[in-house]
């Protein structure tokens, strides 16, 4: 009998014996990743989560996120509605800081510590709470048209300036942050909603235009519908990149910070995976990815910005006053302000 070139009888026999031994190794290699449920917003945010957090940092740990995509209110509702169940529907939930604080107060969130999430040790002061890990932040600034506004605005009061009558506008969804900015301007405190109501009424009387979504707030600068408004610095950067002629002015009275991040419900079925995901979210590489692609500033101290991103997102010198909302206060007063806004500004 002639041997097949490269295959001797001995090698074939040896291979046959070794094959059963190799099967477990093959199974291990092909085993599906352990999954966990990530409640998140859709669109660019979700895509960037996948590109900057999950694929490079979480999948190598043998974990895979199953996205539960949707708006924030249904996410909050899910957490609250299932709080008495032993196993909740979410492992990680993406929330704004104000909402996360309210849920933390309701006692439905797991405490986050550097023992569970080591990268929490690098989080900038004031952004985290006991149950909330901040992911991104951006200061709320005055947006204006550099083509039609000759001298850049200096404070919130400019929105009530008759020069801009009928040319003031911003997305309606930002109303609570705008109210805090109004309070900061008129009363020196983001919590001074009485003064905020007074100045906001004047802005409304100045022909304020309200837009139904954040995205709808950008094009009016291009079409000439509005000349001045309020927005996050991150969004201004995105609009500029999209070719919308809009500039940012830092109000002299200070900027309210928009902070959004992640929480772990107490009844999350896979808490260990949730902690690992949040730790990866705070990784400098992931943080820089979001700054570069979405214009939000890193929430950790060990991710310094460089190059064009640093220039675009640079805060002015001297640094502006940055005001983190008083979450304990805002989470309680928000419904009352929302009611006032609905009846006096939207309907006014």
């Amino acid at each position, binding site marked *: 009998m002639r041997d097949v070139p490269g295959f001797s009888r001995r090698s074939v026999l040896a291979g046959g014996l070794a094959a059963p031994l190799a099967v477990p190794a093959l199974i291990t290699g092909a085993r599906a990743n352990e999954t966990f449920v990530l409640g998140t917003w859709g669109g660019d945010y979700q895509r960037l989560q996948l590109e900057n957090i999950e694929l490079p940092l979480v999948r190598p740990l043998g974990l895979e996120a199953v996205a539960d995509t949707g708006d924030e209110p249904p996410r909050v509702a899910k957490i609250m509605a299932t709080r008495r169940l032993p196993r909740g529907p979410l492992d990680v939930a993406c929330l704004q800081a104000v909402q996360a604080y309210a849920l933390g107060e*309701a006692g439905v969130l797991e405490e986050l510590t550097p023992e569970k999430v080591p990268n929490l040790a690098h989080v900038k002061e004031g952004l985290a709470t006991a149950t909330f890990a901040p992911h991104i932040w951006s200061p709320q600034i005055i947006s204006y048209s550099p083509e039609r506004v000759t001298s850049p605005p200096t404070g919130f009061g400019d929105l009530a300036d008759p020069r801009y009558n009928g040319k003031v506008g911003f997305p309606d969804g930002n109303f609570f942050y705008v109210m805090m900015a109004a309070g900061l301007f008129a009363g020196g405190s983001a919590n001074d909603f009485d003064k905020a109501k007074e100045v906001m009424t004047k802005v409304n009387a100045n022909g304020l235009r309200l837009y139904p979504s954040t995205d709808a707030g950008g094009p009016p600068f291009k*079409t*000439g519908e509005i000349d001045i408004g309020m927005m996050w610095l991150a969004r201004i950067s995105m609009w500029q990149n999209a070719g919308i002629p809009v500039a940012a002015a830092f109000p002299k009275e200070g900027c309210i910070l928009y902070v959004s991040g992640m929480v772990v419900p107490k009844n999350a079925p896979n808490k260990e995976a949730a902690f690992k995901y949040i730790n990866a979210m705070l990784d400098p590489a992931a943080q820089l990815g979001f700054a570069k692609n979405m214009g939000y500033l890193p929430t950790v101290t060990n991710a310094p910005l460089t190059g064009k991103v640093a220039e675009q997102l640079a805060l002015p010198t001297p640094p502006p006053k940055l005001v983190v909302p008083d979450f304990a206060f805002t*989470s309680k007063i928000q419904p009352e302000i929302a009611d006032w806004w609905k009846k006096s500004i939207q309907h006014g």
Partner: protein
Amino acid sequence: MEEEHSTRLMKPSPAIVFLGPATCVVMLFLVAPLVLLARYSLNRYDPTELMIEAVTPANYLRFFTEAFYWEVMRTTIMVAVLVTCLSLVLGLPIAYRLARTTSRWKSVMMLMIVLPLFIGSTVRTVGWMILFAQSGVMDSLAVRLFGLRIDLMYTPAAVVIGTLSVILPFMVLTLQSVFEGIDARLEEAAQGLGAAPGRAFWRIVWPLALPGIGIAAILSFILGMNAYATPVLLGGPRFQMMAPLLFWEFNTNSNWPFSAALAFILMATTLLLTTLTNVVIPRRYRA
């Protein structure tokens, strides 16, 4: 004989067999959530706890004691009535012509009526946004042709036009089937006896079609009352109707009890007003 009788009694009637599955589905997916919603509407809202179990009429009282909510309801009813009337005026001639045509293009015409329903109403509304926006298609055309600016976006007119575009296909399709069901020979007979086409329509077709027209109007009215995407996208935050208001309470404050109460008030008002159709339409013409 007696055995046969008892067997007949035990055997479920065909009606129950046919109606049973559908009834179960309706009970499970429509009635059960409504019962749950009714229960929620009696709960109390708390900014931290969100919903506290209680049996309180506070959410309903809040609606009925604040003028703001009455005004929103009034706007909603006015928009619904206006779009119903407009869709009737615009849809009736189209439906009548479609029903009576013998053209070989009839199926194409029908397809053109149905085609908008292939696209979601939100997507269609985005199309209107492009038309209505400042420096949009209509504005640019008006500037070029007449030197005038048309700023329709975020106006009541935009909401009415947008809602009408959503409702009109339903109106036309319903009316078309109503006219198809009326024998054309009746009109021919009337005309043969000397009635002008208009008179034949008014004296023969209209009374026969009235029950169907009533149903089409009710369908349009219900769609108008519950409009959400169009008022939000074309009306903007300042144009307040009941469905967007309901979502605002749910979305902004997570106030489920008040949202549930608003949902029931909207449903009850719609039901009440549609029942009034029975009063408007004379008894002999009712379906």
